[in-house]
């Protein structure tokens, strides 16, 4: 298993470069290719995007989806990870599923009055990590950044959990975002 720091340093490329790079074979991954997508235009997703090199999802995701379809068909990425509005998750899921990618983590992040509720599904390690960190004061969007490092091909389980924190929605928040991780299916 990669540490979060090693993963973030090595797996994600810097902005403007292809989002792929090699990780030492001793980690168990001969190469880790990750695409990170983030909704444009709201402060939570902007905070998420500031932690990771992301491709933005525009108000009209047409071009992104066409590029995504092509790259997923060619299995260009092992992981597709993101924070988006739910409508875009549904669209991305369609392309992921038809190109043999499987959902390994899903989180729903909803503001209701002064409470932010995270309803998450993922493997044991993801759930434990998010449970310990999301209820604190740390930026929740930056906590999400570690999820690909906690994903393991050997662990296909999808456990559920709910984490609440006292937090008001930022001024331009839609009130609801979802985070998700797709992994290419091993042959």
């Amino acid at each position: 298993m990669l540490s979060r720091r090693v993963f973030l340093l090595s797996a994600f490329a810097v902005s403007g470069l292809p989002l792929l790079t090699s990780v030492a074979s001793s980690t168990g991954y001969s190469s880790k290719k990750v695409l990170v997508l983030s909704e444009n235009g709201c402060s939570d997703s902007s905070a998420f995007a500031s932690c990771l090199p992301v491709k933005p999802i525009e108000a009209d995701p047409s071009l992104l989806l066409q590029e995504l379809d092509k790259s997923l068909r060619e299995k260009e990425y092992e992981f597709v990870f993101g924070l988006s509005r739910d409508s875009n998750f549904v669209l991305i899921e369609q392309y992921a599923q038809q190109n043999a990618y499987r959902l390994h983590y899903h989180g729903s992040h909803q503001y209701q009055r002064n409470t932010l509720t995270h309803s998450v599904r993922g493997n044991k390690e993801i759930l434990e990590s998010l449970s310990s960190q999301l209820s604190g004061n740390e930026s929740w969007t930056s906590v999400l950044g570690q999820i690909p490092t906690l994903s393991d091909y050997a662990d296909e389980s999808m456990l559920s959990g709910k984490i609440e924190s006292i937090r008001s929605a930022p001024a331009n928040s839609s009130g609801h975002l979802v985070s998700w991780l797709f992994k290419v299916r091993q042959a």
Partner: protein
Amino acid sequence: MSDKALPESLTLEQFESAVAELREILGQDRVYTDDINELRAYRDVYATTKDELHMPSAAIAPESVEEIQKILAVARKYVVPLWTISTGKNFAYGGPAPRKAGYVVLDLKRMNRIIEVNEKYGYAVVEPGVSYFDLYNYLQAKKSKLWIDPAAPGWGSVLGNLTEHGAGYTPYGDHFLMNCGMQVVLADGSVVETGMGSASTSNTAHLHKYGHGPAVEGLFTQSNFGIVTKIGIWLMPEPPGYRPYMVTFPKEEDLYQITEVVAPLRLNMLIPNAATTVGLIWDACQRVTKKQYYLGKGPAPPSALKKIAEDLNIGMWNFYGALYGPPPLMDNNWKILEEAFRSIPGAKFYFEGDRPDDPAWKYRAQLMQGIPNMAEFSIMNWVGSGAHIDFAPRSPATGEDAMKQFTTIRDRAHEYGFDYIGEFLVGWRELLDVFMLVFDRTDDEERQRAHECFGKLIEDHAKLGYGEYRAHLDFMDQIAATYSWNDGALWKMHHRIKDALDPQGVLSPGKMGIWPESLRK
């Protein structure tokens, strides 16, 4: 394997034998049977019912007519129900999911050739897997001067949308009207070219629609009488000028006058495209969500809607149209249109450049110009994890009918706790109301409520004399039953055709409420 959905008439052993034969035809990688890793791509993500009700037993992806013919031989041998999809993007009506659990999805997405684009005569010939994006990108790459007419979501199949009687927003918006020539594979494996294409030396297959004898293309739209493997579709030549416009109206009751004003302009083709009167929430969803204005249960109250209208500078109704043609013609037409719309108090006019930060304007202007996009999915964010099924009744294009439809749907939606999210389109002579019943797809109770609400809407409209032109899988039978004139003579005829062309009933059983004899009991 024990929980696996199977075709009703097959044992597991028979099913596995059929799958083995399909694998011999298509190879391992184009026959999908893994429920979790492969077949989840064929579920209805916007279902109001449980996934299991529409879970296929397998999916297969042929690449040619010859492979379809071989598949049909297997289907007839084992009586395997095949559910045909083009790209499976008919969301809100069932998407790629089959009518019943256990069917085998015949997925034609890999038949994706653009066979011909004729620049001189303005048409294209395409296979089922060609999406609006594919055709648009192809034309752009060729620097073609032809437009496509996309449905609102650009990922859909050109052929699939046409055969489902779909519509777009340019003057070529009635897609089936623009069909010219069709290739169909019948259940017995024979291949038919319709119209002029059936003449052995034809050079007008995609220029003249009818040929000699009955025009039969309609039999293969919204039906299960054959598998459409190729269509000709007329494409609009790029006009010398294009000017989109938007007119906003402040009051719900303005819908009456808008429809009265628009109908004659549309009939006389001064408005040449699908004139669309869009409700406030539909437009607002491009920029805001319900939570930002209302945290209570049930539909957003009038005070919230008023605030949204003020904040976003939109109306309770927002009319989108476009002028096409040489500038002097557009100038003259606009004088007539402007005068007509100004007769409605409170009308405000917007043109290109007036709403630079309004994504609703942007995607509407693109659609009316034949540019495909995916912006409309934002509507699903109105309620967070939103999904929708669409209710689409037709009525005469009068103000009275528009208001009757609107208030009937709105009141029923509110009774069930949903918002009215709708738009009205004036065709040449008729009015189409598209009501998006948006619900939270993660809430089982809300899904069930949406399902019940939809059924009530069908009942309501049948009483009012309005028929629906399209239906979600779960409501095909209910809507078919409302076409009941003369003791259901039309559906009786459909069933006779079905029995004649597909006696074993292997093609999409139950599509639009047309069932083979063995399943009509």
